[in-house]
């Protein structure tokens, strides 16, 4: 956080970010890993603990702030992005983070989310996407697959899921990424990249809810499956995947296709090369579309990273400009604006 690192920050360890509260997630929950990776990364982001605030809504994932030894606000369901936005506007010096769930962010909180994106307010949003409502014990969520059988859909869900990455892109988000609870290294990299970004940073994290939706992402996280099902996006690198790194993604028009790069007509050089900084977000959008395509690997990594002025700095700028132009506010002058008259 460029604007907060005024003084040399203390040297922390992951432990410094552990609060004294018992962690109350179900044993085996993917949330533990997200917490651990965050605590591992935070010593490096160059911000003092006192200047970090975690804001959340309601859900299993939204208990996150209690476990981080920073400031924290456990808000109400769906409102974390906007509570965080208000805080960031009032206090641009703080590093403001949001922990949220797929219900919290995309169901009740969808509007605040897309508005945060378009404003490009400098907050970082970590979506714990377990494709289920955990805390309320297992109803389907806006990211659950069509046909899902849950407590509230005993006959199968008839909702088409959101593609959170595509939604964020459609809402003009400047940093859009995806990672996995069970890939600690990757998750750390992405959290670090979000910390470095100035502007709204959105990370969709696939997270296993082992109680109500166990294994939803095992094809993307477990050895022997993930190799064929995940393609890692890296800036300026071609899209290669497969257990033997023998496959790649090639664009046919706008359509990504799998090609073999071993003993085939194609080589590395024919593959789509990722460019996360593309200012038009079309490439990112094409990549986002691979997510629900059963024939294509799921991309993880940074889809898009671009820069534009943030809402909080623009707001501060206007204040400064106003003061420059008019001088610091003088109450007596303000009171006496317009027509006045004197009664003796």
């Amino acid at each position, binding site marked *: 956080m460029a604007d907060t690192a005024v003084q040399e920050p203390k040297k922390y360890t992951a432990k410094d970010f552990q609060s004294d*509260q018992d962690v109350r997630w179900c044993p085996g929950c993917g949330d533990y890993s997200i917490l651990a990776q965050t605590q591992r990364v935070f010593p490096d982001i160059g911000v003092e603990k006192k200047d970090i605030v975690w804001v959340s809504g309601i859900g299993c994932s939204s208990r996150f702030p209690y476990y981080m030894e920073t400031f924290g606000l*456990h808000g*109400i369901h769906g409102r974390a992005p906007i509570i*965080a936005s208000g805080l960031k*506007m009032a206090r641009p010096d703080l590093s403001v983070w949001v922990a949220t769930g797929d219900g919290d962010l995309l169901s009740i909180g969808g509007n605040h989310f897309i508005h945060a994106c378009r404003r490009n307010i400098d907050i970082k949003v970590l979506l714990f996407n377990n494709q289920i409502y955990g805390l309320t014990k297992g109803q389907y969520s806006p990211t659950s697959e069509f046909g899902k059988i849950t407590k509230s859909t005993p006959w199968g869900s008839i909702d088409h899921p959101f593609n959170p990455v595509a939604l964020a892109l459609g809402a003009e988000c400047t940093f859009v990424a995806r990672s996995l609870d069970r890939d600690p290294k990757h998750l750390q990299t992405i959290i670090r990249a979000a910390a470095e970004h100035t502007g709204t940073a959105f990370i969709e994290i696939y997270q296993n809810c082992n109680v109500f939706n166990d294994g939803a992402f095992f094809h993307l996280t477990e050895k022997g499956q993930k190799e064929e099902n995940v393609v890692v996006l890296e800036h300026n690198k071609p899209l290669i995947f497969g257990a033997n790194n023998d496959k790649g993604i090639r664009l046919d028009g706008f359509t990504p296709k799998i090609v073999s790069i071993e003993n085939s007509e194609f080589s590395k050089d024919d593959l789509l090369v990722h460019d996360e900084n593309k200012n038009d977000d079309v490439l990112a959008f094409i990549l986002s579309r691979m997510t629900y395509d059963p024939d294509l690997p799921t991309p993880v990594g940074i889809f898009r990273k671009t820069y534009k002025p943030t809402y909080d700095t623009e707001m501060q700028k206007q*204040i400064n400009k106003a003061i420059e132009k008019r001088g610091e506010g003088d109450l007596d002058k303000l009171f006496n604006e317009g027509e006045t008259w004197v*009664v003796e």
Partner: protein
Amino acid sequence: METNKANQHKKTETIEEVVIHFAGDSGDGMQLTGSQFTTSSAIAGNDLNTFPDFPAEIRAPAGTTYGVSGFQIHFGSRKIHTPGDISDVLVAMNPAALRVNLKHLRDGGTIIVNNQGFTPKNLKLAGYDKNPLDDGSLSNYQIHKVDISKLTANALEDLNLGSKVVDRCKNFFALGLMYWMYNRPVEPTLSWIKDKFKNKPELIEANTRALKAGLHYGDITEIFTTRYEVRPAKLKPGTYRNITGNAALALGLVAAAQKSGLEMYLGAYPITPASDVLHELSRHKNFKVKTFQAEDEIAAISAAIGAAYGGALGVTATSGPGMALKMEAIGLAVMLELPLVIADIQRGGPSTGLPTKTEQADLFQAMFGRNSEAPLCVLAAATPSDCFTMAYEAVRVAIKYMTPVILLSDGYIANGSEPWNIPKASDLEKLDVTFHTDQENFLPYSRDKKTLARPWAIPGTSGLEHRVGGLEKQDKTGNINYEPENHQIMVNYRAEKIERIANDIPDAAVDGDKEGDLLIVGWGSTHGAITSAVERSRTKGKSVSHVHLRYLNPFPKNLGEILYNFKKILVPELNKGQLSSLLRSKYLVPAVGYNKVQGLPFKTAELENKIDELLRG
């Protein structure tokens, strides 16, 4: 200085007070005309009170009755509490304006109409079969048919302006005529014109000419034989300006932010009649006021809560439907025990209701509109300028008690105006805020012994890292806690904290004798009408007193005592009996309501009659 000298052969009569109603199409500039007349009258030293009344449509088709926009001003040489029940003079720019407002003109009152507005088409749109100017139906009134449009056009003839532009100047002619009639200073309006159109010299010229044409018309024509003089009122010495409730409310907040050293953060979403608070505050960025137009009302308050958590003075302003949306978040603010000011500029309801009309029916919502026991402080402003005082007070209570405060205003005082005795910034009470910094044994939910307020410990403070949230929390530590006894303790604390505010607010003041036959208890914008009615009744020798409540939760400590000293208690409200219900419940007194829900304020006469009835019966 341009002055308004009388033609010597016309006589001048001195009168104590006048009510003028300007009415025309939404596009006729009646709000502007009204507010110019107001300024001029204020500068003439009168006390006054105004009431603009405009349609919900932005610009309804010309000539329709529902498109009529009106502005009423009541000014006088004595204390003026209301914009007047009925008007003495009606300025009507078209038949619809006449039709809508005639019923509020006193018998024998004066009508000034724009003759050109009474076209067959307009007559029909207003629902007149025949022209009322000709059919004798107005014989009860003194009617002046003036060729306002034509005379304006004449005055501007050589300026080569489009006919639309010329037509838009006609309200200045009407204004000029009224200035002449009531001997008002013209200078303020002339300089306003110069300022307003500073980049359009032709409009300066046009409007100035129209104004003067009106002025001279009064002077010259034979039809107006009398001018009126309304002497200055005996106001408290000081510098005055005219102010609407919404402007006063905004200034009160800015002042409180400055005096407390806090930066203000307003989260708001536009809604009639609260939008002007947002508009006004948006202008004052050099006071470090951050204003945020949010995606909705929930976002507006949530952002303000975030800001308050960060140490700003969090504010949000809205009206009924928006208020309903904020309730869940207000519950969170109660739980977080953060200071927050929530201004509810009430309007007619339920649901979308009558957006541009006034009502006082959100008191229950303010008191009880949240899930579970979520008590907070509720204040209400009584007059436009009182909005300043009560906004300031709302901030004081919020930061001292670490609590959300709901400030109730309404469309009537929000848009209405009155002279405001401008305070000196240095005379305003200093507001103390100390953010907690001490790391030793820091407990986010420890409490001040006297106020029960918890410490305000903001991010950025070393060693105070802690978590707060909407789940029930442990006494002192603020950690999540579901234990039964703890919940009871916390519920009690939150209630007790609000009750203790009663130790810190002025006693309720009785206007009149401390005991007697009848006590009127009012709150909010009914202040003026009740005050006038009580004055009149007392003149008639009745034993009537008046208490006007600005603190609705908690009530002033002496309120019970006051109530018990009267034989009867009347609670007039622009709702179905909300305060009266609270009083009955708390004090078990047989308060009776006088209730009107018509989107309009009380008339003094209505109240006077009700008082008569009660003291008779």
